[in-house]
């Protein structure tokens, strides 16, 4: 039987600052954010006509992300509004998830708690990001459709006869549940994938430390990179869907 492995959903507390407990994943969230900010500001300050390696890499990422968001919205102004959210989330989660694959980081412990924990395995962070974006896409729907257009999506009394009205009303109520379910599925998609990847590699490492964990790490690497992009892609798609539902109602109204 393999040695007992510690699996906890909650990140471990490292130290307290005036009654505010700093957890290991929070520490790394801030650290990665600061590293990214420094690198990007540094590069943006000294842009060159002929790009160096770092600038070339960043330019490729930014242009690729812009083209992708533009492919979803097909509109310059909307792309400019949604692009910062998309690029920031994608870049942050890409770096955060890949940090787990730096060898030796997980070994360091501070007062019985591991120093490193991937930011994406902290459900609080994912939930806050998802909920903030949830509020944004509700606001997009309200601003683009007007308050009555927005409420009319959920309390829908339109229809030709009484049966159609009842059906539309029931479907509108189901939309409310659908919106709430989006928060759960969106946040647990990222959290579940990254957390499961870490747990499975820990379990495999405790069962057989040599060679056996390698394919599981490869799978973890694959899902880390893919999920880092799926999360912002879905958020941007939800933004776009919030606008489109509005345009449909104006079309039928006019």
């Amino acid at each position, binding site marked *: 039987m393999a040695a007992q492995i510690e699996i906890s959903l909650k990140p471990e507390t490292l130290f307290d600052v005036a009654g505010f407990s700093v957890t290991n994943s929070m520490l790394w969230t801030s650290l990665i954010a600061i590293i990214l900010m420094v690198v990007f500001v540094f590069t943006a300050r000294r842009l060159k006509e002929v790009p160096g390696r770092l600038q070339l890499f960043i330019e490729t990422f930014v242009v690729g992300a812009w083209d992708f968001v533009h492919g979803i919205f097909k509109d310059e102004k909307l792309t400019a509004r949604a692009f910062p959210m998309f690029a920031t989330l994608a870049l942050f989660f890409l770096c955060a998830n890949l940090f787990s694959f730096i060898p030796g980081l997980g070994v360091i412990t501070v007062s019985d708690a591991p120093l490193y924990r991937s930011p994406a395995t902290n459900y609080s962070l994912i939930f806050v990001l998802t909920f903030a974006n949830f509020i944004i896409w509700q606001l997009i729907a309200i601003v683009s459709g007007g308050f009555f257009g927005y409420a009319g999506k959920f309390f829908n009394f339109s229809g030709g006869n009484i049966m159609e009205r009842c059906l539309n009303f029931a479907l509108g109520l189901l939309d409310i549940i659908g919106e709430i379910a989006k928060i*759960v*599925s969106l946040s*647990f998609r990222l959290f579940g994938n990254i957390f499961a990847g870490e747990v499975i590699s820990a379990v495999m490492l405790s069962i057989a430390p040599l060679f056996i964990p390698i394919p599981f790490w490869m799978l973890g690497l694959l899902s880390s990179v893919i999920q880092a992009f799926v999360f912002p892609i879905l958020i941007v798609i939800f933004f776009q869907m919030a606008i489109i539902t509005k345009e449909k109602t104006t079309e039928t109204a006019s």
Partner: protein
Amino acid sequence: MDVEAAKLLAAGLAIGIGAIGPGIGEGIVAGKALEAMGRNPSIKDELFTRMIIGMAITESTSIYALVITFLILFAF
């Protein structure tokens, strides 16, 4: 069977059975999308976003199973 064993069994069954349907469904979504991309490569980008939406909706049931598993293992 004591409660602890029943919990472990329930958690395994919840995610194990819950992942069957979405696994089949996502395979169908990806396969059909690739088929369409092969037939008409010029609409590749548009199909890709549609495919992601379809996959997200297909995947959500397995994510609910995962949530239930976490609840059984860690909350109760």
